Structures are given as structure tokens and as C-alpha cells.
């Protein structure tokens, strides 16, 4: 955990830079020549109309898709392709648009699963659950309990996530991503399908994660109110191209953005 500092100081050096990335599936161009950067400590929103390439962008960042051209610099290391597993090890965690939890497992186990990469004892050590393996488990459980406390989900600790309301499942998924202690957290529509109160709660948690743990966050979201309130900077995509990259107040006034959302004036 990094020492907390005021926001201005925290937002600074570039954590991840995307340069001239293009991605296509057969004849469909999902991204063409997109460049932007994510700076340490900020909350960056990626917005755009449906099919603009937002999720593809996230998938490129965490190594799920391999772009045909362009390069990505993460923590100073340049790469043009990476496996999701390596991305996770490198400190990138994400949540998914359509929830990807283990539905039959409890909240606790789901979040504990997020610690998998931090477990150092092998399979057989864990099987006997004794000595160092036990100590390690206790330590991880402690971290997980801190996250449960942080996200205020103590009441559902032992409940299989399949039985939880959608809003709570989203929170559990965020918990699992946090369990990785990521440097960069990617959130794919964290508020989709939530009611107003759940959205407010989730916004609060996102801000708290950013402030308390200093985690850098990149999120995709459709709710403009939420995006404007939450983010330090907004990248707007339209048909796979970047059309704007500015703080919320400027994006709100940007002609190109308005056109992309509302169409050409007749």
C-alpha cells in the first residue's frame, strides 16, 4: 500500500501508455490508431457510444486481445503483446461487464481467489494446511477481511454469490479485483444495471479505493452523471478512434463528442 498523499501530488507520472494501437477482427476495425496514457493515481474514464471499442480497449490493456499494431508501455516496460496471466502478475486487475464470479462459492472464497497470485506455498503445502501454509492462509484471510470491511459486505461473507442481488455481486467482484492489490484497476461498466442508491455506493467505493489505496483506475461507464463526477480525465472513443481526451468540463463542451452522441445536426 502506498502512503496516501493529496490528489494533485498523486496524479503524476505515466503508469501505462497506449500508442497508436489498432485492432481488427477480420474486416471489422475495432480500434484504429488509438493513443492515450493513464497516469499514476488518477481515475480515467473511457466513454463512447455503443460499439465504439471501449471494452476492446480494456481487453488490449490487460492482454486479452493482441493488437495488430501499436505498442503498450506499462511501468516503463514496452510490449506489444502480453498474456492476461502476465498482466495480472504485473499488477493489472479488472472486473467484467457481465460479472465473472464463481457463483457457487461464497463471497469470502471469491475474494480469496483474488489472492491466488500472492500465494507462494505449493499445492501440497496447502493440502496439509500446516506451519508456513497455515500462516500464509491466515495472512491472506486477514487482507481479505480488510477488503470485506472496506466494502461493507460482512453480512454476506458466507453466502454463495449466486444468491446475492446484482448490485452486491458487482461489489464482490470489485473486492476480488482489490484482493490482487493492483497498481491499475480496470472496471468494465461497474454500475451497469444498478439502481440509484447502488450507484452512489459504488461511486463512493471507487473514490475510496483511489484515495485510500492510491490505486489507479480506468473505467468504462455509460452513466454520464457518474462519469463526470468520478473521473479526473475522460477519453472518448467513437468508431474505434479517439475523438477527445480531456478533463470532464472540457469533454462536456466538446463539439465532436456531442456530435458522436447526438448525431450530426440536420
Amino acid at each position, binding site marked *: 500500500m502506498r502512503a496516501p498523499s493529496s490528489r494533485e501530488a498523486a496524479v503524476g507520472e505515466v503508469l501505462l501508455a497506449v500508442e497508436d494501437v489498432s485492432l481488427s477482427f477480420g474486416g471489422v476495425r475495432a480500434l484504429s490508431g488509438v493513443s492515450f496514457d493513464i497516469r499514476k493515481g488518477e481515475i480515467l474514464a473511457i466513454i463512447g457510444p455503443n460499439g465504439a471499442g471501449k471494452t476492446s480497449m480494456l481487453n488490449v490493456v490487460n492482454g486479452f486481445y493482441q493488437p495488430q499494431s501499436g505498442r503498450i508501455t506499462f511501468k516503463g516496460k514496452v510490449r506489444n503483446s502480453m498474456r492476461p496471466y502476465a498482466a495480472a502478475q504485473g499488477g493489472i486487475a479488472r472486473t467484467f461487464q457481465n460479472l465473472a464470479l464463481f457463483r457457487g462459492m461464497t463471497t469470502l472464497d471469491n475474494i480469496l481467489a483474488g489472492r491466488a497470485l500472492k500465494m507462494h506455498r505449493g499445492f501440497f503445502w496447502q493440502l496439509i494446511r500446516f506451519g508456513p501454509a497455515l500462516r500464509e492462509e491466515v495472512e491472506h484471510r486477514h487482507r481479505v477481511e480488510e477488503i470485506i470491511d472496506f466494502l461493507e459486505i*460482512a*453480512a454476506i461473507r458466507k453466502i454463495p454469490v449466486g444468491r446475492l442481488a446484482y448490485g452486491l455481486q458487482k461489489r464482490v467482484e470489485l473486492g476480488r479485483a482489490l484482493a490482487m492489490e493492483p497498481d491499475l484497476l480496470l472496471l468494465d461498466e461497474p454500475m451497469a444495471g444498478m439502481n440509484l442508491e447502488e450507484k452512489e455506493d459504488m461511486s463512493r467505493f471507487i473514490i475510496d479505493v483511489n484515495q485510500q489505496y492510491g490505486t489507479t483506475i480506468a473505467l468504462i461507464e455509460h452513466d454520464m452523471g457518474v462519469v463526470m463526477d468520478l473521473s479526473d480525465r475522460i477519453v472518448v472513443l467513437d468508431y474505434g478512434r479517439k475523438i477527445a481526451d480531456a478533463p470532464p468540463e472540457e469533454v462536456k463542451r466538446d463539439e465532436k463528442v456531442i456530435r458522436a452522441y447526438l448525431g450530426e445536426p440536420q
Partner: protein
Amino acid sequence: MKAIDRSLDTLPKILIHNAAAIGARPAMRHKDLGIWQTWTWAQMLEEIRAFSVGLAELGLKRGDKFTIVGSNRPRLYWAMCAGQALGAVPVPVYADAVADEMAYVLAHAEVTVAVVEDQEQVDKIIAVSDRLPRLGKVIYDEPRGLKDYVQRRLNSFEDIQSIGRNKLASAPECLKQWEAGVAEGKGSDLSVILYTSGTTGRSKGVMLTYENTIISARNANAFDHLDENEEVIAYLPLAWVGDYVFSYVQAYVAGYCVNCPEAADTVVQDRREIGTTYAFAPPRVYENVLTLTTVRMADAGAIKRKVFDFFIGVAGRWGEKILDGEKVPLTARLLYAIGNLLVYGPLMNQFGLSRVRVAYTAGEAIGPEIFRFWRGVGLNLKQLYGQTEASVYITAQSDGEIHSDTVGKASTDVEIKISDAGEVLFRSPGVFAGYYKDPDKTAEVLTPDGWVHTGDAGFFDPKTNQLKIIDRAKDLGHLKDGTVFAPKYIENKLKFYPNIREAVAVGAGRDFVCAMINIDLTAVGSWAERNNVVYGSYQELAGNPLVYDMIARHIDEVNRSLAEEELMAGAQIRRFLILHKELDPDDGELTRTQKLRRGHIIDRYAPLVEAFYDGSTEAQIATEVTFEDGHKGVLAARVTIRDVKPYPVVRAARLERAA
């Protein structure tokens, strides 16, 4: 039973005594990060002493007032005792109070130090701090979110404790001084000021001495044979006299262990893990649990539902008799035993009630059906009647003498009389020392010879010799034709239905009785789901004609039961409506302890009340709503009014014809 040492006349003295006598026994537990943390009496003394010395270093001294705001956490209980050890007086405030309400109480009580739970409470206090010139330090328990606060007056609980610990370590005479300070306290000293939410107007600060609460607690412990082996869970508001006495004074006096839940919504699980033996809850809690059970059973499979219904029937018929040790046929006993295995046992376990020896309900009348249900399934649920002004206990039911419609006989050392107007008066060692800075109000309630007006109308039931409370004395009214109208009595009948969360009966001085209903979102929501009723908001659901049909059926049943009672038959409900919003303490419609403020509601919804009596079938209403941070909005709606047919009242009908 161990002899009672009369020299232990203050709570800090009892703490020191317990730490020496039963020092290794658990005094408090708190579930934190998923694990129960335990403090023994000896450890608790050390924690409290460190904080207390720290407070003294900050300048808190005898006679000062300090406030406690937050949920049930060990440190907030410790803070009370830590201040009391210095002779200062705690003024706990309801954690859900809006900033304005809090400002009033803190200013009125002239508090100089605030010990609060978390950021939420710190924010509220900072927001109103310009109205609190005397307030100095604000001490918080939970640091989350407070890292970036630059406030010189802000300190963490640990900060103060470490000031105290350093002082104790560096100056050996400090311990002696602190103990001398404790010894200086007397039983007649003011120990706490509890602001009652009050069903009318601004809250009043009830002053209680150590003697008041300690004698009441000793009597209560003796009455129910409570000792250091009890386990209780502290989950009711700290500012409420009930929690102050059950989770603090009685625990100290008996030496039992108080368990603080992990969060407000884990109480049931936490209670289950601890296996509490002594439970206390307002009727609403028993009601909610029953509603939850009913809702879940409605979703269960047919076989489970049949089994449940059958054995609940058995419980209703025989359960209470078995609990009271009466003679019942062997077959009934056998059936009950099977029921216990299949239904009652699991049900009690589910809600953490398996080990409960004594459970109390108080604060409001409990629906007789709810009461019978719980006793039927084997919970030793009893009623008591109490007030802040009495240090809780006025009457309580003893084992084996339980009735759903009475509240028991006078508690130990309590005298009761009924005034000519039907109001209940009492006199006891628990009688409060007066309202803080309000001699006029004190004089209204407390007579010179020590009797307290309760403001409740009641009488001693000739069959059982127990006290029976009908209604608030001032709420008891009459219809235009002189028929007795007891609004609460009718409301309680309505509230038994899981679908009805709250009801307001109107009719005093009118031609007939009408009711405003609040539906229960859990119960009605689940019903809507099962019946494919689509709704987007509380308001929409409340206005749905199918919901109206359902509520109309409930009211019809209530009318039928009212028609059977001679006194109440004339006060059947003729018209009703479903309110478009939930009644809320933030809007002043309920008190912080969730009691109706009927007068205020009738004023607030005057257009609806008028519509009841001018024959309209619809009415427009706009109400101001207050959000927790204090800002206001307006909620407007058209509300439908329905008529219901009253049942014929044999005698009254005949009279009408004669006239």
C-alpha cells in the same frame, strides 16, 4: 446469589471491583475483521483507565458533559465509563439523528468533548460546530476516510489512550489520583443524561443518577436470575435507556458479557454465533423476523409450506401451555416435540434464539398474534413496561404469568397508581432526577411526593391483576357520537399483517374512523414479484389497485375483530388510503425509536385527512422530505381513498334504528 456490596454505588467503582473479582471472565466482545475479539474485565479496566486518564489530560473534569455518537462498539461504551470515572456526564445521541437535531441536543447539554464512531458522525459535528462554542476535542473510533481531514480538534481513540498510557507510565502517582477520583463519586451523582426522542416537540434530557440505574439493574437481575454467565448482544441505539441499562448497567452489576456486532446488518448472524441468553427487542424486531419468515415460507416448496403451517398450528395450540408448564395431553407433547425438531428448533436457531432464557419486548404494544407466535415456538418472550424516566422498569411479567395484552405487575420497589383520568403513575428508586435545564417540564411530570405521570392510559386487569396499557392518555379520544376511539389499539391490529408496516388511525372528534397505511416493502415487494406486478418505486407499488385490494381485505378482517369487542365495535374503519411514502424519523413522522408522532402526521397530511371526511375518492398531496444531510425536497402524489364496509354492531345498530 452473591451478597450485594452497597459501597459499589457508581459504575466505575463496579468496574474496578469486577476487574478484581472476576477479572479473567469476558466482559466484552466485538467482531472485527470476521473474528470475535474478547476483552476480560481486567483488560477492559485497563482500556477504560487509559482513555479516562487521556480525557483528564485533555481537561475533562467533574461535572462536564461529553457526548457519545455511533453504533454499538466497545470503545463507545468504554468512553462512557471513562468519562464517568472522572465525574463527567455522558450524553449519548442517536447515531441516525440529522445534523440539526444533534446540534440542538449538544448545545442544550453544553457538551465539551465528543466521542464518535466514524467519518459520518465527524462530518455532522463539523457541519454544526459553529453552533457549539463549548465543544473542544472530537475523538473518533474508526479512522477510515478521515486521513485527509486537517482539524486540530480531531483525535483518534488510540491517540487519547496513548496519552493516558504514557501519563500512567511516567507518573506513578497518576494511578492513585485516578482511583481517588473514582472513589469520590457517589450514588446520588448524576450519571447520564438521556435525551428522549419524545412524541411531541423538542427532546428533553432525562437526568439519571447512579442510584437510579444501579438499583433498577440489581432488581431486574434478581427478578430474572441473571448472573455473570449471561451473553447479550448490544444492537439497540446507545442513546436509548434500554440499551444503556441492558448493555451497560445490568452487565456491570451482574458481570455478564456484552457482545458488539460486526455491522448493523450482521446482528442476526452474530447473535447466532454467540448464542445470547438474554434478549431484548422492541416489538418491531419480532415483527420483522416473523414477516421475513412468512415471506420466505411463501416462496418455499409446497411440502415445506404444509409442514410449516401444520406445526405452527400445533405450536399455536399447545406451545404456550407447554412453556408455562401446564398439563397437556401426551399426543400434543409428542407432536410438539416433532415440530420442535422440524420447525421450531431450526427457526429459533436461524435467528440466534436457541439459547435465550429470557426475552423481553417493550417500547410499544406487541400484536397479540406475534406474541403468541413466538411463545408458541418456545421463546420465553415476556413483556415489560418502562420509561426513560423510570430507569426502564415499571412493570414486568414473571415467568409463568404471561399474557399478550398485559405488561405485568409492578417491578421490585415500584409503586403504581391509576389517576382518576385513567393515567398510570409510578414511584420507584429509579425515578429520574428531572429534565436537564427544564424545571417547568419536570414539574409537569414529577409530583413533589415523587410520583411520575407516565402519560399512558391504563388499568389493572381484574382477571390477571396485571397492568394493561390501552394508549397514550392524550391520544385516547372519542368519535363525535361519543364512541371510545383508541387509535393505537386499531393501528396495532393492522400492523399484525406482514404487508402493513405502519398505520395511522384518525377519527377523534369525527364521524367515523379512517386509516392511513404504510405498506411493508419487503412483504408487498415479494408478493408483487410472485404475482407479476411490475413497479418502479415505493410510490408506484403503494398506488397499485391490486395492493389496495389486498389491504382492503386486511382492514375487513380487522373490522370483523373490532366488531366482536363491545368497547371498540363502534370504531371500525370506514375509509382508508395507502401513503405514497414511508413514514420516516427524518421527516419527524416517527420518533428515533420508531414510534408514530400521530399529531404531526395528521397536520402534515391534513389534505388527506380532509379528503377522508368530504367524500373524495382521490386527493393531491405534496410533502416536504428531509434527507439525512439536512437538505430538503418535495414529494407530490395523487392518493386514492377507498371505502370499506363496517361489520354490523349488534347493539349499536339497534340503537340507530330506535333513534
